[in-house]
């Protein structure tokens, strides 16, 4: 609902170009007009039909492509390099599957996506009220850069492959253009995810920056105070220096207070429990006025027990006013929780596309390298992976695919870290103010923050952080080595058979060998090894 006086610009304002392109290509089904006028993502039936139509056209074209180029694979079948053939067969449809996953999930989630951005807008407004300003303009820049990068990569791969490796004398070869469609659509979809994730990360960082600003402000305030009356120490030191020097109230008193606290402990706990539900009831520690008095930087001691701390304080920094800052910290903490929830919801929306992307990235990366190896050994490779014939195109493809995956992983890792950082910044506030009431608040909120975790995962199979990347890179290398080993072994066996055959033909080794010629190939292997070994 567009408000009469919008406090903040909606995030979706930055998505104009991206939405336009996604709409045309058929990544998102939402209504274009509504988006343009209200910056809202709304369900649209026409969009859904349009998208389904586009999807079916893509599927038909892709199948046509596979059929028309599949004829070249006959030689592959004939040459009996089964490993290459099977891998090619497996990976024929993976691009299509990935694209279909993206589009179908977008169809299913078309209502929820709008809600998600609405929630982000609400969070922005709340942050704005906490004087925590966000700059969304760099997001538009990011989108533009990502789009340009996508176009450059796609077009360079397509054109280079088409010119170098496709026989463009036939008009059917134009179908090759379709081969770029799945990756392109997938990238557009992932740009949505990446940019939204980046926006979340910015919000976390804004919260952290606000907290750090509070700390800085208070430190300035303290130095100002200490500069004001150079005779006394700074506020923080005063609280800690004074009690030992002038604590005439004997231990008696304090111990009684301790006992009193022990007795009242249950009460405090129950109050705290309710505090987590009702945000205005956090830190109900007003029962012990002793703790109040001790903590407050009051120069005169006799009144320490009874003075209301709020009276004799100079308010320069926000942190010195505990009740005021409590409200703010509480709100920030809740916004943090809300952002975490949004992050989880977003992860839920994109969980299947991300899983398919990661699977695609892993398989394609391995396959491309393997086919590159095959191509350097002058073996035939599946026609859909002809870009592996040229090392430079391969490098571009690999950079493009891995760049997509790694960027998403890196971003989710960074977002997760930024959300964890908030707890540390919060504690800094507590430490710098050195105030008992504030400590209570901070401790309470910190426990809450410990439980808000935003860990991005792909359907729960694996978390999206850098350690997964480390594991995956290890997996790719070991699979590659195994594949190359098998390929080598198969090649050696084939060579051995051929050389043995030619050996048979030339030398008059007729008798025993020709009999075995009719036998199975395993026998051949045995013979070759037994024949060859004495000569070594």
């Amino acid at each position: 609902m567009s408000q009469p006086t919008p406090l903040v610009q909606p995030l979706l304002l930055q998505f104009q170009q991206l939405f336009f392109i996604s709409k045309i290509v058929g990544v998102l089904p939402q209504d274009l007009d509504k988006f343009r006028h209200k910056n809202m993502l709304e369900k649209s039936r026409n969009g859904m039909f349009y998208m389904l139509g586009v999807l079916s056209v893509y599927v038909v074209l892709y199948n046509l492509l596979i059929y028309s180029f599949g004829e070249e694979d006959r030689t592959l079948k004939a040459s009996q390099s089964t490993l290459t053939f099977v891998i090619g067969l497996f990976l024929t449809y993976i691009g299509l599957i990935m694209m279909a996953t993206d589009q179908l999930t977008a169809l299913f989630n078309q209502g929820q996506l709008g809600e998600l951005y609405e929630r982000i807008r609400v969070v922005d407004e709340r942050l704005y009220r906490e004087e925590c300003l966000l700059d969304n303009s760099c997001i538009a820049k990011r989108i533009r850069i990502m789009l340009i990068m996508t176009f450059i990569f796609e077009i360079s791969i397509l054109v280079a492959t088409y010119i170098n490796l496709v026989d463009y004398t036939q008009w059917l070869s134009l179908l090759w253009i379709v081969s770029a469609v799945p990756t392109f659509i997938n990238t557009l979809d992932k740009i949505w995810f990446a940019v939204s994730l980046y926006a979340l990360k910015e919000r976390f960082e804004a919260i952290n920056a606000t907290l750090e600003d509070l700390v800085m402000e208070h430190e300035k305030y303290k130095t100002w105070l200490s500069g004001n009356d150079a005779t006394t120490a700074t506020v923080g030191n005063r609280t800690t220096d004074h009690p030992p020097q002038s604590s005439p109230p004997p231990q008696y008193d304090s111990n009684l207070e301790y006992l009193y606290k022990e007795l009242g402990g249950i009460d405090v706990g129950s109050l705290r429990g309710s505090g987590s539900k009702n945000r205005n009831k956090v830190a109900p520690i007003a029962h012990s006025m002793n703790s109040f008095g001790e903590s407050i930087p009051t120069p005169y001691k006799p009144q320490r027990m009874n003075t209301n701390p709020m009276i004799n304080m100079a308010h320069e920094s926000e942190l010195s006013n505990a009740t005021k800052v409590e409200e703010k910290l509480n709100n920030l903490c809740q916004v943090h929780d809300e952002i975490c929830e949004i992050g989880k919801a977003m992860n839920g929306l994109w969980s299947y596309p991300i899983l398919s992307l990661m699977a695609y990235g892993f398989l394609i990366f391995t396959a491309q390298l393997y086919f590159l190896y095959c191509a350097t050994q002058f073996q035939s490779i599946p026609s859909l992976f002809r870009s592996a014939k040229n090392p430079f195109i391969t490098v571009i493809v690999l950079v493009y695919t891995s760049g997509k995956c790694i960027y998403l992983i890196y971003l989710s890792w960074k977002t997760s870290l930024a959300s964890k950082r908030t707890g540390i910044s919060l504690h800094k506030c507590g430490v710098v103010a050195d105030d008992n009431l504030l400590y209570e608040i901070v401790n309470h909120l910190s426990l809450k923050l410990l439980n808000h975790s935003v860990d991005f995962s792909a359907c729960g199979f694996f978390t999206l952080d850098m350690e997964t990347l480390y594991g995956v890179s290890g997996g790719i290398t070991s699979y590659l080595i195994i594949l190359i080993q098998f390929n080598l072994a198969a090649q050696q066996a084939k060579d051995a058979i051929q050389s043995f055959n030619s050996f048979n033909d030339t030398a008059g080794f007729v008798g025993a060998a020709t009999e075995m010629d009719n036998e199975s190939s395993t026998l051949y292997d045995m013979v070759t090894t037994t024949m060859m070994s004495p000569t070594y």
Partner: protein
Amino acid sequence: MIQIMNWLSMAIGLIPLNRQQLHSNFLVDYVMMVLVPCLYLIAYFGIIVMQRFGLAFLDACNSVCRLSNNLFMHLGAFLYVTIFVMSLYRRKQFFVDFETHLAEIDVVIKKCRQVADLDKSRVKAVKHSVAYHFTWLFVFGVFIFALYYDASALYGTFGEYAIIPFMVSSFPYLAGSIIQGEFIYHVSVISNRFEQINTLFEKINQEARRRHAPIQVFDIESEGKKQERKSAVIATKTAFGIEQKLADEMKRQKSPHEDEDEMNTSDEEDDDIFDYNDTNTENTESTSETNLPDLFKLHDKILSLSVLTNGEFGPQCVPYMAACFVVSIFGIFLETKVNFIVGGKSPVLDYMTYLYVIWSITTMVVAYIVLRLCCNANNHSKQSAMIVHEIMQKKPAFMLSNDLFYNKMKSFTLQFLHWEGYFQFNGIGLFALDYTFIFSTVSAATSYLIVLLQFDMTAILRSEGLMT
């Protein structure tokens, strides 16, 4: 030792000259950082383009040798270029920042030490252990041996042009190791600060222990069971070795306590003991606990410093560890599959194999030290939280008097929980720099080696005429 390493890294252009001053001649500072990489790149591309001076272009070099030499050279180029780019990106700002932060921390630590009356033991802290010197000597020995071996072998082959192949064979690994040495130095400084903080915490902890007994007595205010209490008092008194005379007096009084009449006197005794202890410990107590907020701030600051350091050096760890891994695997592979079978037949091939083995050992040593120090620093930082918890459990007197200290300590431990989730020494998040990394690499290396060792080299060796 650190000085030598710093000079060396300045000499080969890995850190800028005058790195501590922010305002000095820009040109002078970075001249080495431009010259040396240029030299390296000239040597590298010169060998590739001119097809001369490389080991791979010698007639004596067969296909196995050529392959391994190329791998070694390109891996080195990858290592050096990535490390150099990151060093250039870091520039001086980091060193200046690090020093200023460290100076701030040191000032506070000094203050805390004065408060805690720990200055006497400082002399001990500066002195390094035997293991420290031994490690340095060992590392230097290993490096000098590696460099000497490579230089002498290359000099024997190429004469006065040996510097060109040397630049592409050993130099990148040397540069990478020196950068790791810088990392080690910075981490050890951080680790040292953590240790100092821990001693300060430990001091407070000990004081709390000393003051534990009288509080226990004081706590039980109710009447009855005087007898047990009495004996407890005596036990604690003797245990903490407070003036034997008084204790003896107590013991003498123990037997009369059987009578109920002695109630009052024993009460008096209790109060006496309490007062005595209180006055005895009051001085140290009041000085040491005031350190706590400063110490908490310090801990936070040092952790921030570690984040800064890790942000600078962590990315450089990744190519280094990768290079170490690859070189080690190929070192083992060449040693077992080539050198055992045809060792001594081709001197160039032997040289390549030994080069692999030597550098794999050298890089592994450096990597191990990095991991060890990072692990140490982590453990030290964890230990502070443990000690604080111990203090909290003991409920010393200063904590009972007010809520503030309790909340402060709780806040600190909670903050440490957050830190634990947020930070650990790592290589851009790919792997944590601790002993688990060794386990994961060793297991990965084993599986690669099993695959590699199946690789049949006999045909290749035979075709090179090394085997009959």
